[in-house]
């Protein structure tokens, strides 16, 4: 009787297993990463309807642009009524140049893994509901030109690591809850002050040579 029981248990167990056991049809790690992203989003307007992860690559999906090697270079989902959150898996899009997620209702934090998007030129997350800090790891984005994080609920300081990105031309962090001082070195020398406004706890430009800035701001 015990043997019979265990045979029945094997069957019920294998029902759970069956789903994991099918070998995966040819797919693509960039498509998989985007699929994971899609699953963490709420998409009432069905803008992601074309995102079929069973396809060999995501290059025919809407709002995705690829280069001639079928690698994703642009993700254009601005103003698409999306909510949900970002996922670290986006780091797998190694050739991504433009990450356009502005004017949505995306919540949660900015994953520090986005720093691994080494080809990134534009990071547009403005007008969302993002919280948490600006990851200092973003200082690794050595090709970044646009960093627009305005109109969110980001806290913490503006990471000094960003001053090392010589390609940075447009930075906008206005309309957040950032604290500490405004960097003035490197690319930040030419960023107008209005791109930092509406951060009640931001103290103003960093006064070089004076000790202890960014007090009480961690």
């Amino acid at each position: 009787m015990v043997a019979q029981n265990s045979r029945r248990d094997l069957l019920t167990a294998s029902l759970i297993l069956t789903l994991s056991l099918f070998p995966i049809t040819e797919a693509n790690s960039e498509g998989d990463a985007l699929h994971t992203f899609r699953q963490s989003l709420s998409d009432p307007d069905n803008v992601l309807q074309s995102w079929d992860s069973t396809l060999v690559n995501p290059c025919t999906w809407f709002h995705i642009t690829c280069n001639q090697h079928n690698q994703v270079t642009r993700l254009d989902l601005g103003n698409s009524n999306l909510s949900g959150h970002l996922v670290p898996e986006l780091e797998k899009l190694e050739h991504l140049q433009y990450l356009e997620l502005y004017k949505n209702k995306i919540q949660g934090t900015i994953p520090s893994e986005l720093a691994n998007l080494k080809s990134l030129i534009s990071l547009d997350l403005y007008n969302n509901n993002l919280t948490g800090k600006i990851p200092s790891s973003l200082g690794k984005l050595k090709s970044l030109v646009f960093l627009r994080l305005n109109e969110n609920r980001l806290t913490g300081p503006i990471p000094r690591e960003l001053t090392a990105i010589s390609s940075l031309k447009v930075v906008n962090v206005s309309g957040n809850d950032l604290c500490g001082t405004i960097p003035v070195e490197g690319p930040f020398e030419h960023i107008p002050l209005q791109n930092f406004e509406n951060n009640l706890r931001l103290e103003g430009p960093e006064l070089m040579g004076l000790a202890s800035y960014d007090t009480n701001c961690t």
Partner: protein
Amino acid sequence: MSFAMKNLRFSLIIFTTLSCSLVASATISEANALLKWKSTFTNQKSSSKLSSWVDNTSFCTRWYGVSCNQEGSLIRLNLTDTAIEGTFQDFPFSSLPNLAYVDLSMNRFSGTIPPQFGSLSKLIYFDLSINQLTGEIPPELGNLRNLETLHLVENKLNGSIPSEIGLLTSLQELALYTNHLSGPIPSSIGNLTNLVNLYLFSNSISGSLPSEIGNLTNLVELCLDRNYLTGQIPPTFRKLKNLTLLNMFENNLSGKIPPEIGDMASLDSLSLSTNNLTGSIPSSLGNLKNLTILHLYLNQLSGVIPPELGNIESMIDLELSQNKLTGSVPDSFGNFTKLEFLYLRENKLSGPIPPGVANSPELTVLQLDTNNFTGFLPEICKGGKLQNLSLSDNHLEGPIPKSLRDCKSLVRAFFSGNGFNGDISEAFGIYPYLDVIDLSHNNFHGEISSNWAKSRKLGSLIMSNNNITGAIPPEIWNMAQLGKLDLSTNNLTGELPEAMGNLTGLLRLRLNGNQLSGRVPATISSLTNLESLDLSSNIFSSKIPETADSFYKIYELNLSRNKFDGRIPILSKLTQLSLLDLSHNQLDGEIPSQLSSLQSLDLLDLSHNNLSGLIPTSFKDMKALTYIDISYNNLEGPLPDTPAFQKAAADALEGNRGLCSNTPTQRLKPCPITTSWFKKSKKNDYIVVWILVPIVGALIILSICARTFTYYLGKRKLSIRNNSDSKNGEKYFR
């Protein structure tokens, strides 16, 4: 009754009472032990199923998940999916000697698996799956000689699989998948000769496959995929005569596929994809008469596809893509009658597509793209089930077969990058489920058929780079579901109707490189979802619609090489615009200063027009601008002080007689230091100042004079009145 009999009856009564109470006390002590463990759970309230765990006398009868033997001792504990949050540290191992079945899966148990579980010597079924357990699998579990099923799946277990696992000689099913296990598969696993199912997938297991696995002759399913296994596939696998499922995809296996795999006669599904396997596909695989799934894609396999594979009548899903396979597709592939999926893409296959290969009446997906196939496309979609067809980037030629015109099942079709010819207005039919079709880079001629509009789910219609002529049929402009329309580089003529505004779903519109004429309708402003618009290299004329400022998502706008005239419209709202090319037109007037609002602009080409006036100084705010070309206009004045202009090459500036620059590297005349500099983009401001100041000044002077005058006038009147009225006595005082 004799005294002895009375004695015996008495002692029997005593004995049964005693043993009943002993049994009762065993029940009670086990119940108490479990209650004590329950008290360590950290979410006492939320598990409603455990509300029955109160009265220790109803232990065997009423307690949820508890089953006892006839002596009232716990043999079976099933608490799957009971919302328990706790650990096993206080599990009453020594109090439950008869426990044979333990299922604690799908809860929120954390912490490690205590080695004391190994003391439950009667355990037959042990399941701790889908929890948050950490730490290593204790080697003491190897003491469970009666264990038939061990499930530890979906936890966070790490460390190696202990070699003591090889002591579980009764084991029939071992599932450790979806954990963080590392290290090698112990060779002692070969001792588990009763093993039927072995699931170790989705871990970080490394090292080579032990050849001892070949001793597991009762094995039916073996899943080692998604790990870091290296080395070769052992030829001893040929002994696994009962194996139906072999999944080893997504590892780092190397070497050749051993021909011995052909001896695994029960194999139904074989997946070795995404590894580093080399050499040829062994022809012995043709002996696997039960094979339905064969996945070898994403390896370094070379040589030809063995024709013996065509003998596998059961084949349903055959995927060999992304290898270095050469030669032709075997003719024997025409023998498949059950084939649904055939993926051969991204290889170096050549020769013709055999007429039979797409003959299977069940064929749903046929992916042959990125090879060197030549010749004509044979009749396909015979079974009327073909949904996904990819032939791109080959050397195919000739007409589209008639069977494709009637293939109503088509969903995705890619023909680009071949030499297909024929009249495109007749080659294709109406496809009720068609989502994407790409016919680009071929030799199609003729006109676009209005039938495309009847494929009501068509989202992407791409026909660029052919010899298509005639006008765009008006029906195309009713396809509101269209997301991508690319008809570029053909010979299309005619004008764009106002109805083009109906395509509100359009994300990408490419009509460049044709002979389209007339004005661009203002209704184009309805296409607010446009991300990319290219109308360049046509003969569009008249003004660029002002309404172009409504494309708020657009990143690429190319209207170059047309006959657009009039002024550049004010484009200030296109905050994402990265590329703006209006070159080679007949645009006149001045460059609107509002273009400086395009904060994302990277490339700006206004060359070869009739633009005049100064370059707006607001352009110094366009920080992201890297490439500009304003050559061959009538522009004058200084260059803005921004790197894009200061570093521009001479040919990006030439052909403007009035341009000047004080930067020596620019080969432009130096800018004169005259009042003409006051005529800046806000030149009106200065004019206003020079007009207002004198006017205001004059008014002030006039008002002073007026007051002084009226004052003295009043005084004189008063003195006259005073002289005449002094006798009357009334004096007027002010």
